[in-house]
């Protein structure tokens, strides 16, 4: 599998990272080098092997289903780069 610049442009959009047009091709080269190196995993026989989803051999700890937090609007908003009053703001999304 090899990435072309069009695929890199699509991944950049999915990741919401602006990549200048001139950097798409060099980036495709870098990513292809890494993916080519990763390709060696195809040598490993993984028939009947379960994918590891959790490294710890234990049941997930579950706390009581109770409200333990809240009433902290100011703390939540304290770091907003463009907070207004009780709100986060974003560029206009509804015309």
């Amino acid at each position, binding site marked *: *599998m090899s*990435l072309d610049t069009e*695929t*890199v442009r699509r*991944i*950049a*959009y*999915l*990741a*919401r*990272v*602006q*990549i200048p047009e001139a950097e798409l091709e060099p*980036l495709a080269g*870098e*990513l292809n*080098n*890494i*993916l080519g*190196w*990763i390709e*060696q*995993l*195809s*040598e*490993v026989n*993984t028939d009947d*092997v*379960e*994918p*590891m*989803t*959790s*490294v*710890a*051999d*234990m049941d*997930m*700890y*579950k*706390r009581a289903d109770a409200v333990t937090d809240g009433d*902290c609007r100011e*703390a*939540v908003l*304290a*770091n*907003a*780069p*463009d907070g207004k009053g009780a709100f*986060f*703001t*974003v*560029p206009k*999304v509804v015309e």
Partner: protein
Amino acid sequence: MAALNELTIAEAGRKLDAGEISAQELTQDCLDAMAAARDMNAFVTETPEIALERAAASDARRASGDTVGPMDGIPVALKDLYCTEGVLTTASSHILDGFIPEYESTVSANLRDDGAIMLGKTNMDEFAMGSATVTSYYGPTKNPWTLDDGKDRVPGGSSGGSATAVAAHLGLAATGTDTGGSIRQPASFSGIVGMKPTYGRCSRWGLVAYASSLDQAGPMTKSVEDAAIMLQSMAGHDPKDTTSAPIDLPDFRAALTGDVRGLKVGIPKEYVIDGMPEEIGALWKQGAEMFRDAGAEIVDISLPHTSYALPTYYIISPAEASSNLARYDGVRFGLRVDGDSLDEMYANTRAEGFGTEVRRRIMIGTYVLSAGYYDAYYVKAQKVRTRIAQDFDAAFNDVDVILTPTAPSPAFAVGEKMDDPIAMYLNDVFTVPASLAGLPGVSVPAGLSAEGLPLGLQVIGRAFDEETMFRAAHVLERQAAFTAKPAGMRG
């Protein structure tokens, strides 16, 4: 008497208990050392006011007989990946500009509650992605170890600021975090002890996330005993992290019996790799001899999937990172770069806020998780990860601990390995397998390279058996008797 900042935690604790020194004197010596070593760039943020205030509080507790444990009054540096209440937390990334958490990470809160004194926040590779502390937005950290060639050496990474802080005696100890080797490899490069606990031993709550199935907090210290003391404070179950293990902590320090007679130490043949300097193989052999001399039994073992660990890691960790780093959207915290639409604002913010290596890993991660490639890359990597963990399970039927080199080279010069990402990734070839299997590992300084730079050996233990790992590492430390100091610091 040597300056107080050169003490270990254990030594300082004895002097504090005996009333020979105060926490304020101890802290002031560290702050003075930090001020004199600013050209090393070990810290992103220094917190002298907080440090002196907590030191005074510690002295007051001691005066009234209310000391809260062996970390009380001990000045430590925190990696800038730990969220600290009211103190700038950056993960050494531009995208966290101005981020001042409203809360304290569980691990740093544990240390604070046990009386440890925060000196400041240490520099690191951006979002813990790197092995040399050269991807920091705040510039590289220098290793106190140098050679006569006039070049600065990297301290390793990603916890390189913490490694330098300990190696240069700017603090008595430091916290690190380790995803694929980010505590152990810098410990090896800097001649200190660096310990990654079993996955689940320390809470991840309040750590800036990189790869959640791998990230672990751990201590970076001047001795194995100090690592045991500090881990005791950092670790423990936390209801706020569902992957934190709900099991009681053993007494780690009590495990340091000095006796490894009959202990079985595994030597994995797959850790002999192409291009590794001969001196590292020789040091590894010496390490095995030290264990044999102390009465342990050396056992040859095989971990057949070792060579697949790095490529597996470079699917799983970028995949998790691309998901975790989706939160940096310019809306809720940190940097924001405007755009004409919401999507443009996101893309502009993330383009300016993330450095080259972070962007690269987000791209890889997004790709391997994208429709059509998920099974071929991500699920395949999860399956190989299972095979790697099974290798260790099988080996631990025959041995109690595993001995390996920590890193395939001594510290390299700042600026090297910058154009080839894969060459940089290879730094973690010996640390990543245990990370993927969730196992505890510790790097112990064991010798010097021919040129005069420190080299570490790694002891890997069974899951949740840090005690045996510490016991072995403590004996290795005693046998290796590493006393060398960086050139500028020989008294």
